[in-house]
């Protein structure tokens, strides 16, 4: 059974179904979306269950699982050579957990969009297209295919933010689009360069196959990104330029400071479900891209520049946390906390140690559903009174005790309390970056310290917010009408929140559920890069 193709293209079927159904059945759209996403979740679960944790993946095609390969575009272009584009998908330990996470977060997002009133047809159709693109990104092993999904993802997001967003939605939508496109257009040039540099050893044709791009032996001598025959562009090593351009294309998604400014705007203007997807899945695409593409295709440059990546990670952690501390808008605060938490991912990746990279992966998973839960919780208040200002609320604990309970758990889980998943991720990243100095990967110990300060700051802004909004006397900006509107969580909201937070606890207690599957791939990646240190 082509399980991955099903996983990718089922949502497209849902889109077709939603578009084909006339508008008078509009109440059924959400059920269609939910059903298809649930099937996807089951399929992703099957992938998880059948996953062979001993297989390595990364730069070894034999180590990938559920591989599907079809020749897609074959063209003879004369002097450019034969164009060889495959429909090649497969997963390894790095993509599998993210695939499962995506299916889970999508399910949450559908749940959060239950009360969408404004043209539900377009909304759910776009959401399903986005779903397809995201799944495709995590499965694609052909760079052309990857790029296709990567760009296709932007269009539904533009419209989802632009049509269903808040007051400044036009600005936020185009800003988000331009930032990402700016990165990806230059990525396209690098893809073209790689295409000319790499030869499929079996057919002798140029190829877009990412796995072939990871093997130094497949590079033509003297080609632009070739290993032998040093090439320069304007006096800088061509491989370094390739690495930097790809890194920035993905780093915009992560996002790193100073390229993060689209994120708060997009989050604040986006409707709750889109915020959930943005924080839960799209930021991970940045981290995934850095591991899968930048690090695996340019391992030599990864080893060369990891000090800078680590620095960017630390700056993002601390700058994001300080910004979160000063925000008055709850959603904006959580958006900045995402910047800070994703900084850990970058720091962990930069450490080039098995602990660090595993920690980064774990942090991505953990942040994936925790930030989704946080945005969902913001959405709960916003739905009821259409206000998110922290200072508009006080003493919510007395009106909404259940809500306060969930918020408290989510906040504690996010700030890295031991026993929750975020702790494992952050701890491993810090261990990894601390050990990096002794292995000699070039990451100084003070960067680990920077990470710890970030954890401290995240405790400060989260706990301070908890105190400001939920404790003390009841004092609401909207007075009586607000206290009537602010009803406690209903069962739909609890059904969505409970499994998420339970998962945070479960993974915090049994991190092996994720680590076991990651391990072989991460070790392989680390040893692959360490040859170049």
């Amino acid at each position, binding site marked *: 059974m082509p399980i991955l193709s099903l996983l990718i293209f089922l949502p497209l079927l849902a889109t077709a179904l939603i578009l084909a159904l006339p508008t008078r059945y509009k109440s059924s759209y959400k059920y269609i979306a939910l059903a298809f996403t649930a099937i996807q979740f089951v399929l992703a679960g099957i992938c998880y269950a059948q996953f062979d944790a001993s297989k390595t993946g990364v730069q070894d095609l034999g180590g990938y699982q559920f591989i599907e390969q079809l020749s897609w*575009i074959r*063209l003879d272009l004369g002097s450019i050579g034969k164009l060889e584009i495959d429909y090649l998908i497969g997963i390894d330990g790095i993509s599998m957990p993210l695939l499962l996470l995506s299916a889970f977060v999508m399910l949450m997002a559908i749940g959060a969009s239950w009360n969408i009133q404004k043209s539900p047809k*377009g909304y759910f159709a776009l959401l399903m297209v986005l779903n397809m693109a995201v799944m495709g990104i995590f499965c694609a092993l052909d760079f052309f295919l990857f790029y296709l999904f990567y760009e*296709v993802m932007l269009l539904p997001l533009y*419209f989802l933010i632009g*049509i269903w967003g808040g007051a400044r939605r036009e600005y936020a*939508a185009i800003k988000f689009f331009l930032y990402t496109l700016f990165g990806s257009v230059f990525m*396209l*040039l690098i893809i*073209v360069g790689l295409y000319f540099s790499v030869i499929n050893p079996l057919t002798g044709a140029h190829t877009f196959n990412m796995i072939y791009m990871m093997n130094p032996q497949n590079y033509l001598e003297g080609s632009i990104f070739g290993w032998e025959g040093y090439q320069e562009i304007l006096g800088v090593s061509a491989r370094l330029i390739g690495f930097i351009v790809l890194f920035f294309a993905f780093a915009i998604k992560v996002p790193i400071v100073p390229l993060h400014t689209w994120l708060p705007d997009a989050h604040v203007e986006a409707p709750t479900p889109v915020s959930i997807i943005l924080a839960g899945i799209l930021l991970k695409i940045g981290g995934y891209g850095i591991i899968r593409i930048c690090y695996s295709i340019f391992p030599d440059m990864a080893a060369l520049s990891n000090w800078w990546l680590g620095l960017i990670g630390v700056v993002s952690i601390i700058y994001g946390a300080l910004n979160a501390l000063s925000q008055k808008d709850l959603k904006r605060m959580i958006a900045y906390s995402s910047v800070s938490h994703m900084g850990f991912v970058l720091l962990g990746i930069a450490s080039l140690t098995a602990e660090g990279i595993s920690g980064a992966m774990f942090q991505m998973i953990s942040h994936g559903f925790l930030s989704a839960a946080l945005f969902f919780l913001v959405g709960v208040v916003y739905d009821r009174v259409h206000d998110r200002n922290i200072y508009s609320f006080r003493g919510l604990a007395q009106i909404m005790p259940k809500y306060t309970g969930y918020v408290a758990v989510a906040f504690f889980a996010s700030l890295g309390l031991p026993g929750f998943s975020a702790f494992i991720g952050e701890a491993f990243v810090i261990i990894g970056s601390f050990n990096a100095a002794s292995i000699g990967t070039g990451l100084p110990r003070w960067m680990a310290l920077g990470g710890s300060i970030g954890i401290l700051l995240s405790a400060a802004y989260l706990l301070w917010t908890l105190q400001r909004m939920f404790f003390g006397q009841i004092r609401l900006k909207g007075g009586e009408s607000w206290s009537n509107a602010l009803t406690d969580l209903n069962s739909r909201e609890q059904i969505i929140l409970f499994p998420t937070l339970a998962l945070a606890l479960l993974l915090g207690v049994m991190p092996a559920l994720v680590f076991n599957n990651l391990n072989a791939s991460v070790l392989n990646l680390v040893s692959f890069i360490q040859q170049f240190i």
Partner: protein
Amino acid sequence: MLAFSPYISSFIDQIIVSVPYFKPELTLIVTFIGTILASLFIDKYWKHASFVITIIGLLLSGCYLLGQGISRVEIAGFFDMISIDAFAIAARMIILLATILIAVFIQQRHQERPLGDLYAVLLTATLGLNLLTMSSNWLMIFIAVETVSISSYIMVGYFSTTKVQSEAALKYVLFGSICAAVMLYGLSLLYGFTGNLNFDAPSHIAGLMEAPQIMISIALLFLLTGIGFKLSFFPFHVWSPDVYQGAPTVITTYLATVPKIAVVVLLSKILSAWLNVSFYFSDFLTYVIIAIAIATMLIGNLAALRQQDAKRMMAYSSIGHTGILLMAVLVYQNNESNVLLFYLSIYALMNIAVFIFIDALEASLGNTTIESYRGLGKQYPLLFTSFSIVLIALVGLPPTAGFVGKLLVFSKVFEQYQNFQSFGLLALLLVGALTSVISLFYYFKIPLNAFLRENTGSPAVKFNMVLLCIGILCTVAVLILGIFPDVLLSAF
């Protein structure tokens, strides 16, 4: 006269031998006469007569072309005045198909008045374009360019009723005739240097090598003036926004797509004949074209940012696309025309679709400002979804054919860069990538207005279903060719 008499029989032989290769064009000429006669005598009784004859003629011409394509002839006829190769056949095929679409567009859009003359003019323009793709003789080229130009002047002015439209037509005529005169001067200089009128003849190229540097530079710049007017690249682009906006949308569609195809083919033939030697004139030409391509991309895209009118915006957008086409032309090498042809056909497809949509909206809204599309996306989801998809293709985003076209052009340029390490080519790539980001801004103004903004009063819109279907079919083709480009690419 007496001196020629011994050769007359061989001349006639040559002409008789060449005629079969000229069948597609002869068909056009016969159709041209047929259309005029029909518009004079038959249109009174059956008003579609001239249209039907035009379509039949174009299809017949297409059949002959197909025959040439299948037999893969590579032949020179009429004393080397025309030379037919696979490139010319494919280019003419694209021109013909686009012209058929335009003819249908005209027929559907302007039913209120007799159009026989317009079809006749359309056919002469097609004839001129066909000659452009086949010829390597300067005289023939000049005649072809003038045939196209004069036909275009008539088309722009044909419907003019308002002051803006007459102004557009007059501007076009004045600008066009001056450019043509300058080009003719350039050609006469080239003939003076080389004593040969065939631009790919060895003696012609040898003459170019030996010509004095200043004079050859001037001659080449003069030549580019004429070509630049037809392609509307910088700095000869200034006419196009006014003309595009002022002319009826059907004619704008024609001007923005079909003539460009032929002129691009011509330019790429000239460059591929000249640029594989390394002398002053070829280096000069390379740098000039690179500079023009960069300036054209930047100016077209930056100026488009500020436009409020969809047609004017599309004029600047097509200037921007000319820059990309110039990139493709620059790296075109003999016998490897499929990238160029792919881009040209996609370009034609996208432009025709966009203008059909603009026209459909113009017909009911009465104007073409982007503002007036406010909130219409919800009312006409099919039209605006297709419109948005085509705009996405124009930006060059997957999964559309516009992306594949751009990718292939970039690949060609990159390959050349890898071979020669020339900074100019790298600059072309960077500017090409940067301007695609810029272009997102203005193309997306349309979906932005249609979908993201609220409606301010809904006009009663009645669409022409035939045209709308053509537009949507073009959109579907753009999508399918984006996912399976080899369908079209392997045909070239």
